[in-house]
C-alpha cells in the first residue's frame, strides 16, 4: 500500500526568501499527522501547499499514489477545516455543507442523503437552517467539519481549528476530533502551535522550525528522544531541563560534572555512554527529577540540592533549583516536603537522559 500522502524534497520560495526547505514526510492511510512548531515556522504554508492553495517551487506531493503537485485543490480529493472555520456567512448551515456538492453537480437527492448522514454524525441536525452568525464557536467548528466530511476525501486537512476557542471548549473539541478520527479511520493532517494538542491527537508528529523539519516521529519518540535542542525545548510542558555539564569518560561509562554556586559540583553517571564530547547539555524532563524520600528505585541517582522556589500546582508540586547556572524544574508529587531555601535529596533518572552537543544542538545519544 502506498502512503496516502507523500511529500518529497518540497521547497517553497517567495521571492528571495526560502519558506520551506527540503521537506520530506509521509503518512499511511488512517494516520493522524500533526505539523507543529512556533509561529512562522511554515507549518500553515506546508498545509496550504498540500491542499494546492499555494504553489511550490520544487519537489513533489503525492496523494494516494497520484502526483498532485500541479493539480488544483478541488481535484486533490481533500477537505479542509480552517482556523476561522470560513463558513459562508450568507448561507444556512445546510447550504454551507452542500455547497461543494452543488458546485460539483451532484444530484439534489444525493446531497440530501449525505447532508443527513453528516448532520447526524456531528449532532447538528437542529442547526441546519441557521446562519453561521447564530451559532456558537463549537457549533461552527462542527459545521466546518461537516462540510469537510461530506466530501468523503482521502485526506482531511486542519489548519489550527481550535485556536479560536476558549480553553475549556478547546479540550472538548480536541476529544471530539480524536473520536472522529478513531470512528472514521480517516487520514488527517493537522496544524497547531500547541504541543499538547500535538501530543494528544497525533499518531505521527512533524516538528518544524524556520521552514525546516526538525524531527518526525511518534509522540513518544518526540517526547522521549528529541532530535535536537529545539525539539527538546519546544515539546513538553514544562520544558525539558537543559543543564550544561562537563563530561569525563572513565571505565564505567561517563560522568557528568555540573557546577553549582555555593556548593560542590553535582556529579551524575551514565553507564551506557560510549563516547561524548567534553561539554554537553544534559537533558532531563522535570518528571525525571524526583523527591528522594518519596521515590525509590535502584537505578536512580541521589544528590542533595538547594531549593530556590516551590510552586504547588494541585496534583504536582514544581520545585526550581539552579544547576550548572541554569534554572532547573523538578516535578514532584504533591506530598513532598520541599521547602524554599532548604536543601533536599533529589533523584535523577539518568536512564531517561538526553545529551545534546552544546554547539550544534544535535542529539548525541
Amino acid at each position, binding site marked *: 500500500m502506498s502512503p496516502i500522502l507523500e511529500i518529497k524534497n518540497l521547497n517553497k520560495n517567495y521571492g528571495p526568501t526560502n519558506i520551506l526547505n527540503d521537506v520530506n514526510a509521509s503518512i499511511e492511510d488512517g494516520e493522524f499527522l500533526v505539523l507543529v512548531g512556533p509561529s512562522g515556522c511554515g507549518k500553515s504554508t506546508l498545509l*496550504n501547499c498540500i*491542499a494546492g*492553495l499555494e504553489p511550490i517551487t520544487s519537489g513533489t506531493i503525492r496523494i494516494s499514489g497520484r502526483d498532485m503537485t500541479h493539480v*488544483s*485543490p*478541488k481535484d486533490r480529493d*481533500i*477537505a*479542509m477545516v*480552517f*482556523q*476561522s472555520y*470560513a*463558513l*459562508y*456567512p*450568507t*448561507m444556512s448551515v445546510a447550504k454551507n455543507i452542500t*455547497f*461543494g456538492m452543488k*458546485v*460539483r453537480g451532484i444530484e439534489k437527492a444525493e446531497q440530501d442523503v449525505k447532508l443527513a448522514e453528516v448532520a447526524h454524525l456531528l449532532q447538528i441536525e437542529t442547526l441546519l437552517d441557521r446562519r453561521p452568525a447564530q451559532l456558537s464557536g463549537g457549533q461552527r467548528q462542527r459545521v466546518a467539519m461537516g*462540510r469537510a466530511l461530506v466530501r468523503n476525501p482521502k485526506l482531511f486537512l486542519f*489548519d489550527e481549528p481550535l485556536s479560536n476557542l476558549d480553553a475549556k471548549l478547546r479540550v472538548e473539541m480536541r476529544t471530539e476530533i480524536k473520536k472522529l478520527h478513531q470512528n472514521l479511520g480517516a487520514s488527517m493532517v493537522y496544524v497547531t502551535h500547541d504541543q499538547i494538542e500535538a501530543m494528544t491527537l497525533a499518531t505521527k508528529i512533524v516538528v518544524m522550525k524556520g521552514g525546516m523539519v526538525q524531527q518526525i516521529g511518534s509522540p513518544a519518540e518526540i517526547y522521549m528522544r528529541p532530535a535536537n535542542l529545539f525539539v527538546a525545548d519546544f515539546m513538553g510542558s514544562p520544558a525539558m531541563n537543559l543543564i550544561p555539564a562537563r563530561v569525563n569518560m572513565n571505565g564505567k561509562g561517563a560522568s557528568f560534572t555540573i557546577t553549582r554556586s555555593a556548593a560542590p559540583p553535582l556529579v551524575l553517571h551514565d553507564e551506557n555512554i560510549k563516547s561524548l564530547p567534553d561539554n554537553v547539555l544534559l537533558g532531563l524532563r522535570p518528571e525525571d527529577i524526583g523527591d528522594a524520600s518519596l521515590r525509590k528505585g535502584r537505578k536512580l541517582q541521589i544528590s542533595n540540592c538547594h531549593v530556590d522556589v516551590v510552586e504547588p500546582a494541585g496534583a504536582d508540586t514544581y520545585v526550581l533549583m539552579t544547576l550548572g547556572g541554569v534554572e532547573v524544574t523538578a516535578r514532584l508529587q504533591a506530598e513532598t516536603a520541599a521547602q524554599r531555601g532548604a536543601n533536599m535529596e533529589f533523584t535523577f533518572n539518568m536512564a531517561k537522559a538526553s545529551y545534546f552537543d552544546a554547539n550544534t544542538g544535535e542529539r548525541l545519544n
Partner: protein
Amino acid sequence: MTNSSITNPLREMMKRFVLRWLLYLLLCTFALYYMMPLFVMITTSLKNLEEIRTGSLMSLPREITLAAWSTAWSSACTGIQCEGLRPYFWNSVLLAVPAVLISTIIGAINGYVVAQWRFKLSNVLFALMLFGCFIPFQVVLLPMARVLGMTGLAGSISGLIFVHVIYGIGFTTLFFRNYYVTIPVELVKAAKVDGASFWRIFFSIFLPLSLPIIVVTVIWQFTQIWNDFLFGVSFSQAGTQPITVALNNIVNSTTGVKEYNVDMAAAIIAALPTLLVYIVAGKYFIRGLTAGSVKG
C-alpha cells in the same frame, strides 16, 4: 498630583448647566448658519418679483405664489430654448441611472479582484487606477472632447455616461476593495477547496454580502454624477445638457429681467433628488464620504 480644590457641588452643577446651554446655543447658531441659504432659497422662490424687490432677504413671503416654480419647471429660458428644467431633469436621469449602475458593477468586480485575488502587480495596478480619481479633470477635457468627436458620441448622453463611468471606476473600485478586504481570505480558500470558480465565488459568496457597500457606492456615485457640472458643460449640447448646466443657464442668462424667484425655484428643483437621497439614506452617504478617509 491632581489639583483638587474643594468645590461646592452646587456651583459645579450650575457651571455644568451653563456650559451645556452655551453648547446648545452655539450648536443652534451654527445650525441656523447652515439652514439659512436653504431657507432663503425656499422663501424667495415663493415670493413674487414685486415682493422680492421691495422686501428683505430673509422675510417670509407675504403672499405665497407657486408661479415661479411652474416657470422654473416648464418655461424658464436656458439660452434659446424656453422649456424650463423639465427636459434637462430627464436628461440627468437618463445620464445618472446607467452611469451609476455600470460604474458600481465594474467597481464591485474590480474591488473583488484587488481585495481577494491579489497577483503580482495587482496593488500597483490598483494604485494607478486610484490615482485617476485625484487628477483635476481639466487635464483630460481636451483629449476627451476629441475622442468623443471621433467616435460620434460628442454631445450625446451616451458620451456623458461613458465619461462618468470611466472616471468613476477609480472611486467605486476603492469603496468595494476597502470593504472586501475585511472579508477573511479563508472564505475564498474554503470555496476553492469546495471547487468553486472565480465567478461562482463572487456571485454566491461576495455579492450577497455586499448590500451595505452597494448602497454607499450608489449614493456616492449618484450624488457625484447628478451634481456634476464640468463634464456636463464640456461634453453636452443644447438638447442633451444635464440639469446643472441648465440651471446655470437659467440663472446666468443675460436676456430679460432677472427673475430671482425662478432662479431659486430652479435651484431647489435641481437639488431635490440628491437632497432627498441624503435625507433618506444620509448615514450611508456619510459612510461613503468617510470611507477610506479615516483609519479603522
